[in-house]
């Protein structure tokens, strides 16, 4: 007789024997079935009622349902976009896509900056310097007690109150700060830059592989080969070498004042800058609290035990404390990233053309209220789900492996 079939663990969980449902109120199975049918029935009746009303109303207003309007010419002027756009010829679909890209632009950069600033402030709150701890604590308290929308309006008006281009604040002849936004030098993009970027990405992969090899070697022999020379070479020297071999182009376009405004150079618009500033400062207040509680959640004994094993302070932080703090930090951090992304929709209040703002203009122009809001919701649901999935994957990777 084979042993495996006798082992109860290999047979899977044993199911309770299937019981036939009695058609009586005293049977819990029957009751739960009735309740579910009743509740689903009520919900679908309400849903049907709303949908039929909507159809009637739309018919009365002569609005065709469906997403056909996406192919019509939009005619919405858009101030800043990552891809080319012509109001006279491009469609609503393309305008909305620009909105999505603008949302991603502010959310992506906002998440990175807020994480950096929030971590610094969170560490500052734990500083042994009393003044530092108090000041960062004050910042966290105040910034979290003021509505984000009020902060955005404040920053936006403050930026609009900056001097006109002619009197702009400047750093040398390169960076200008005026009520038209920030003007920065713009590197003229050439093939060499693209290839350098490709080399950098190859370097990232190479460093990752090298690091894995080093760890495998350490586990096999106990000696860890140095990683940083290879990393430095792959991440810095390789892209630089590629760039140099391809002629090392260094053309930079400087913003120049012509008449009432600047020509050339890259622009950070006041709307974008106000939104980014507001989002970063606000979210950093929350991230700081998460980082602080994460570090505090690691027991002091962990530090002491690692010290007793002879690890240096940096090694303790890197190998003992931070991995454990990260475990506490990741879930609330995920929801802050989601909040930041969702809060970027407040752009509509200060005229930055994110997806909400463009969808709002679209639905005002076309009357396609249902579709417009469906677009907004679909975009944010997709972004939210992507961030959640990525963070859940990362969380599972670093999670404590239980028995």
């Amino acid at each position, binding site marked *: 007789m084979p042993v495996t079939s006798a082992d109860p663990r290999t047979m899977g969980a044993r199911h309770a024997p299937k019981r036939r449902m009695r058609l009586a109120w005293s049977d819990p199975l029957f009751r739960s079935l009735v309740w579910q049918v009743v509740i689903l029935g009520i919900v679908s009746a309400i849903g049907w009622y709303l949908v039929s009303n909507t159809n009637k109303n739309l018919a009365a207003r002569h609005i065709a349902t469906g997403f056909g309007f996406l192919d019509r010419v939009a005619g919405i002027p858009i101030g800043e976009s990552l891809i080319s756009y012509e109001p006279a010829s491009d469609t609503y679909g393309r305008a909305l896509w620009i909105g999505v890209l603008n949302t991603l632009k502010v959310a992506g950069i906002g998440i990175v900056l807020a994480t950096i600033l929030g971590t610094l402030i969170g560490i500052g709150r734990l500083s042994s310097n009393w003044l530092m701890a108090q000041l960062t604590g004050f910042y966290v308290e105040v910034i979290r007690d003021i509505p984000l929308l009020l902060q955005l309006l404040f920053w936006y008006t403050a930026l609009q109150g900056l001097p006109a281009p002619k009197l702009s604040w400047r750093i040398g002849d390169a960076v200008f700060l005026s009520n038209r936004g920030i003007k920065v030098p713009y590197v003229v993009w050439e093939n060499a830059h693209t290839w350098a970027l490709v080399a950098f990405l190859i370097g990232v992969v190479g460093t990752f592989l090298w690091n894995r090899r080093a760890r495998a070697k350490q586990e096999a022999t106990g000696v860890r080969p140095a990683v940083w020379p290879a990393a430095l070479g792959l991440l810095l020297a390789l892209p630089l070498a590629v760039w140099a071999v391809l002629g090392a182009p260094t053309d930079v376009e400087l913003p120049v004042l012509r008449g009432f405004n600047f020509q050339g150079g890259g622009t950070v618009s006041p709307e974008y800058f106000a939104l980014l500033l507001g989002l970063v400062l606000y979210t950093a207040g929350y991230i700081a609290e998460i980082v602080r509680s994460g570090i505090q959640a690691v027991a002091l004994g962990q530090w002491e035990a690692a010290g007793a094993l002879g690890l240096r302070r940096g090694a303790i932080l890197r190998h003992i404390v931070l991995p454990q703090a990260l475990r506490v930090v990741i879930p609330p951090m995920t929801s802050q990233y989601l909040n930041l992304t969702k809060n970027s929709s407040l752009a509509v209040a200060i005229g930055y053309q994110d997806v909400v703002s463009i969808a709002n203009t679209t639905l005002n122009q076309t009357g396609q209220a249902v579709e417009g809001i469906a677009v*907004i919701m679909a975009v944010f649901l997709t972004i939210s789900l992507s961030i959640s999935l990525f963070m859940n994957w990362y969380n599972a990777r670093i999670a404590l492996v239980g028995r």
Partner: protein
Amino acid sequence: MSASIINESAINQSTGSREQPPPGLVGPLAWLRTNLFGSWVSTAVTLALLYIIVRVLFSFVEWAFVNAIWHVPYSATGIAQTAVCQDAKGTGACWAVIADKYRLILFGRFPYDEQWRPAIVVVLFVALFALSTIKAVWRKGIDSPIVRYIAMSGAGLILLDNAAGLLDTIVEVGFGVHLPLPFGLLLLLNTIGKCALVFGLLLLWPAIGVWIGTLAFIGILMFGGILGLTAVPVDYWGGLPITLILATFGLAFAFPLAVLVALGRRSTQLPAVKMLCVVYVELIRGVPLISVLFMASVMFPLFMPPGINVDKLLRAQIAVILFAAAYLAEVVRGGLQALPKGQSEAADAMGLSYWQKTGFIILPQALRLVIPPLVNTFIGFFKDTSLVLIIGLFDLLTMGKVALSDPPWQSFSTEVYIALAVIYIVFCYGMSRYSRGLERELNSARGR
């Protein structure tokens, strides 16, 4: 001999002639040395921060108080002459804008002579919050059959009047005639019923009674139309009362819904209901509040049968309730998950029904655990009500912008925004202090 020496030193320690720490480890100087000048880095940080703080503080005090302008003259036609303020711009604050506009910002376009009503409403809200922080209020009141009878019959009287009204409407729509019912008497019974219900609830659960009573009174003050108060249509409401109404009514209605959704999401017996709750919560939490508010302002009118108009404030209120309920449901679910399974199993073993188990065993413990995060969520929604600005409702922030649209004051937005921020900070800081106090209490109670 040696034993007596040991005893002696023990006595010395216990009678208080304990050795003092060496000088230099206690006192303000030592505190400064450890906390501000502990190392070279710390000293440098302290000096740099001190420099920045002093400079910022000095220039702020100079701007906000020393050089500030508190009043401006008015022309014969009542238009503010802001030339003084324009001259001081950049060096001194112009608080005259607040002096001129504070009634508009706080109470909106509510009729000027009646603005004592929203003022009382604000005071009532604050009193309601303050009262809710007292623990004794949340204790169970007098639970006797008579009290229950009073509350039930009150509810019955209200239902009677509403049912008669509904029947009358149906008959009128169908046959075009009114029913010969004593409507005056029914209205009187309705009023008596409302009093009885509030009175009964006040005795049964004082806290819930106080909440319902206060919110009803707030409604009377705002709407008017009875007790000799002038009726004020919702279009004229504005300012702080709107912010407080949206947040408080939003929470009061979202909370019961949230509890039901959280229970539904945890249910094992009703998979269809569970799925419904999951979809609702995740859908709402995945989209920004703005999109839900847009839905309320643009799509809601399409949902209603033709000819029925729902007021804009009510639509926004429904959106806030639906939005808040999804977030609160997750908070409540956290509390439900934190309870050990033994509680539920023990209740099952005692033969309690689902609702008995939930009402008497699970919820009282789970909700106690989540009061601090509930308060934090409430702070979030208090701030988020400012988003109704985008759909054109006149809350506190919108009124600030309206005040700024007056030509003489257009360039003094900083002053108005600071004043608004102070109001928000006062409310939010108060609530967050309360939540932190609760949390500490809860932790110390659990950490026995």
